[in-house]
């Protein structure tokens, strides 16, 4: 990892509570974007965006297709679309088949971002009950980026970060209360 160009957070069951604790402690200016991909029911986008928005001074936006990715902004993947990143650092959406029973899939965003940001990418996998994100973290590592997980012991649902720890060479295991500091210190 050289210089963080994007910080991507993937989460499933039990992840929203983590974000609600992390967001208020983030600095109001960051030198990179934060991209959040959460598994959830379709059609609940506005609720999630306004909820997260109320917890931080950073602008929180639900991604629009072809949107340019700006620093110091929190982007939320819309429900029912996969989120991908183009080489010109814009977002793309994709309504193809679910991956790991999920759309958006965490694997899809991690893999796509790994090919664009290479060693300047950090991906964090939070609480959850399925295998989504594991293949993605492998790809992040192959491309020189950093793979982080929430500590499974303190995760509401340990399975997802636990599986990541078993199958991927994880760079850091973070406690909920340490995540915001970790992100803030990456900012230049």
């Amino acid at each position: 990892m050289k210089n963080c160009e994007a910080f991507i957070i993937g989460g499933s069951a039990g992840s929203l509570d983590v974000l609600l604790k992390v967001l208020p402690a983030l600095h109001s200016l960051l030198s990179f974007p934060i991209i959040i991909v959460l598994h959830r029911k379709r059609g609940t986008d506005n609720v999630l965006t306004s909820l997260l928005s109320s917890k931080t001074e950073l602008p929180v936006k639900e991604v629009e297709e072809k949107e340019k990715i700006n620093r110091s902004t929190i982007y939320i993947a819309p429900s029912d679309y996969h989120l991908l990143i183009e080489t010109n650092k814009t977002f793309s959406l994709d309504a193809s088949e679910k991956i790991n029973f999920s759309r958006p899939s965490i694997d899809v965003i991690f893999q796509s971002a790994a090919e664009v940001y290479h060693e300047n990418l950090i991906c964090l996998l939070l609480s959850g009950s399925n295998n989504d994100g594991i293949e993605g973290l492998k790809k992040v590592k192959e491309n020189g980026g950093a793979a982080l997980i929430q500590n499974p012991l303190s995760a509401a649902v340990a399975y997802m970060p636990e599986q990541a720890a078993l199958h991927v060479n994880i760079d850091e295991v973070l406690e909920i209360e340490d995540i915001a500091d970790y992100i803030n210190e990456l900012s230049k």
Partner: protein
Amino acid sequence: MTLDPAEKSDEQIEILLSDALEIYGYDFTGYSRASLKRRIMRLYVLDQFVSFAEFRYKIRTEPGYFKRFLEQITINVTEMFRDPEFYKTLRKEVLPKLGTYPFIRIWVAGCSTGEEAYSISIILKELNILKKSLIYATDINGAVVEKAARAMIPLNNMKQYSENYIASGGSGNFSDYYSANYTLAKLNDDLKAKIIFSTHNLVSENSFNEFQLILCRNVIIYFDRPLQLKVFELFDNSLEKFGYLALGSKETLDFSTVSKKYKRLDSQKIWRKII
């Protein structure tokens, strides 16, 4: 100098796209790369190729395999009454206005396996205007168009579609519109009678009629901006004054050159041509 894997595969994708154009006349060069690349890599793994050269050779030399390539890299995920609120707006606002016309022409561009066209057909029937309507349902992929024309849907999808139908303001019994046949639901013939299924490539083909409603939902997300602009011009040339253009929930006409001729409905991604 050796290229790193990601850049090398980017270069290989470009080679395949220029082969597809040169040999088969299919132009994917205006497609968004991230998604397209994922589809192509997926096919490469699925069909167990061991080298790019082998993959390329098969695509170049076997038209039958190119057909599979085309079917696999285009995205054919669809649903009946997907986004129920959208269909509610069609039912309450858009189609009743078109119902005052003597004849209604609708184009479903990128119809995939037909679920959207059949959904429209059901609403038209419930509004008692199906008889004077004609739906043109087109897709780049001939295999899905053939499938659409068979009007058979996996039975285990029907529960979800029935929920969508009710949420979209459906006034009948959804189960009256099909008969169960082992694992498939066969949609009633009268729903199909007013649909013309055909292949059409938005990238390379021209306008073929004038419509009062064009639906093109979750198709242009796969196109880059210049191709999106081109397709919007095609739609503009194919739409009557006061006609409607409906896009997917994350798509927009806003940045396009034709947008000043359109006014968006408040709640949905539906634009009305006002000039």
